[in-house]
């Protein structure tokens, strides 16, 4: 069988464990959200949307794979992408809480995608300048992909917000539910700040103006109010999750755990 391998692109002198943690956060964000979107398979509202959600999920899972592979190399303990994705426990996952929320109805899924993508676009664009070559490389691809995710989600949000009484009711309900989860997007802790100083990571708080401008523009077009109130739920980066992540992982990890070490 011909040998095929991925060339490692390491080269930063940032502390390996800090870089590992950081990369894991980004990988978990992508995998958890990608998995949630994949749950729409076979039950999306239209055939075109079935394909759209699956393709967005595929982009995210592809990004997760590249990030997990990099994290494994940085950690240096021989853990593979599969080890990290399928054989860590709930408390070890470091994703943002907004990613793990159940899909809800289509309005909820669309709004969640817009809130996240509006942040990830400037985030990936900034991370393209990372001193870590692999993070920069993943970012360069992800930025282009998330531009499409944002466009797709925004167009739907306009249709739903400015659509029928039913679609508007559901969109407003989704907005009420999702807004308190958005603040965590901008959270920074000392470890991440140190990586920003080292030129490896991105200052998330600094992206707030651009996120805000995008959200304002889309909400205006969709006829949605911009909620007041600044409190947001937090904990994902510390492995403190909602009651939703456990069951999600149980399903996602079940096949790998039933046959540990199996290969295709």
């Amino acid at each position: 069988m011909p040998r095929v391998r991925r060339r490692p692109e390491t080269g930063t002198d940032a502390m390996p464990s800090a870089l590992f943690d950081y990369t894991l956060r980004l990988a978990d964000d992508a995998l958890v959200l990608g998995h949630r979107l994949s749950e729409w398979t076979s039950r999306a509202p239209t055939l075109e949307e079935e394909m759209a959600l699956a393709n967005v999920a595929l982009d995210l899972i592809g990004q997760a794979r590249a990030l997990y592979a990099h994290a494994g190399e940085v950690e240096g303990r021989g853990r593979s992408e599969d080890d990290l994705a399928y054989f860590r426990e709930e408390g070890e996952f470091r994703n943002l809480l907004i990613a793990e929320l159940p899909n809800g109805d289509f309005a909820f899924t669309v709004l969640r995608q817009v809130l996240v993508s509006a942040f990830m676009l400037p985030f990936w664009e900034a991370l393209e300048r990372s001193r870590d070559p692999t993070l920069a490389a993943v970012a360069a691809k992800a930025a282009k992909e998330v531009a499409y995710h944002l466009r797709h989600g925004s167009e739907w949000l306009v249709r739903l917000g400015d659509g029928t009484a039913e679609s508007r009711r559901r969109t407003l309900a989704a907005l009420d539910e999702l807004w308190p989860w958005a603040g965590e997007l901008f959270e920074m802790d000392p470890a991440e700040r140190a990586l920003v100083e080292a030129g490896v990571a991105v200052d998330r708080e600094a992206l707030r103006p651009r996120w805000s401008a995008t959200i304002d523009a889309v909400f205006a077009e969709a006829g949605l109010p911009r909620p007041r109130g600044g409190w947001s739920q937090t904990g994902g980066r510390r492995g403190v999750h909602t009651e939703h992540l456990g069951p999600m992982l149980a399903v996602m990890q079940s096949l790998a755990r039933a046959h540990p070490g199996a290969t295709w």
Partner: protein
Amino acid sequence: MTTPAPRRPEPDDAMRLARARAAAASVADPEIPVLSIEDLGVLREVRLDGDGRVEAVITPTYSGCPAMSMIAVDVALALEKAGFAEPRVVTVLSPAWTTDWMTERGREALRRYGIAPPVGLAGGRRALFGETEVACPHCRSAETERISEFGSTACKALYRCRSCREPFDYFKCI
């Protein structure tokens, strides 16, 4: 322990490399058989390593492109068939693949196959609510509309021609 001396280039290396390049370049995209990975810009480089073994370098189109593992296997098999023992296929992420790397021959092949090739260059930010004008690959009319942002694969969108009423895939600019 001394490092072994680097292998000296042999007279037929250039010919071997050319043969290897041709073999790797001929591999077709599994989803779009009229496109070679060379036309697609997925094949980045073919070279001989220090031991005279062939190494092919490929890059994924989209982050999650599921065809990449198939392409990697196909490249290795093509190289083996061309007589190169133990070929290596390496995947790199950087520089990020862009439709700008697609050759003119590739674009024309897509059109003849019924897929509209990417319009314009990928550089520069897309407008949030912008619309790309795509010509129908069947009748060349500009009277087309997008049915679905995402098509049968991550790289394509689904369009319909208002003139000849045929649906067609559009290879998205990225």
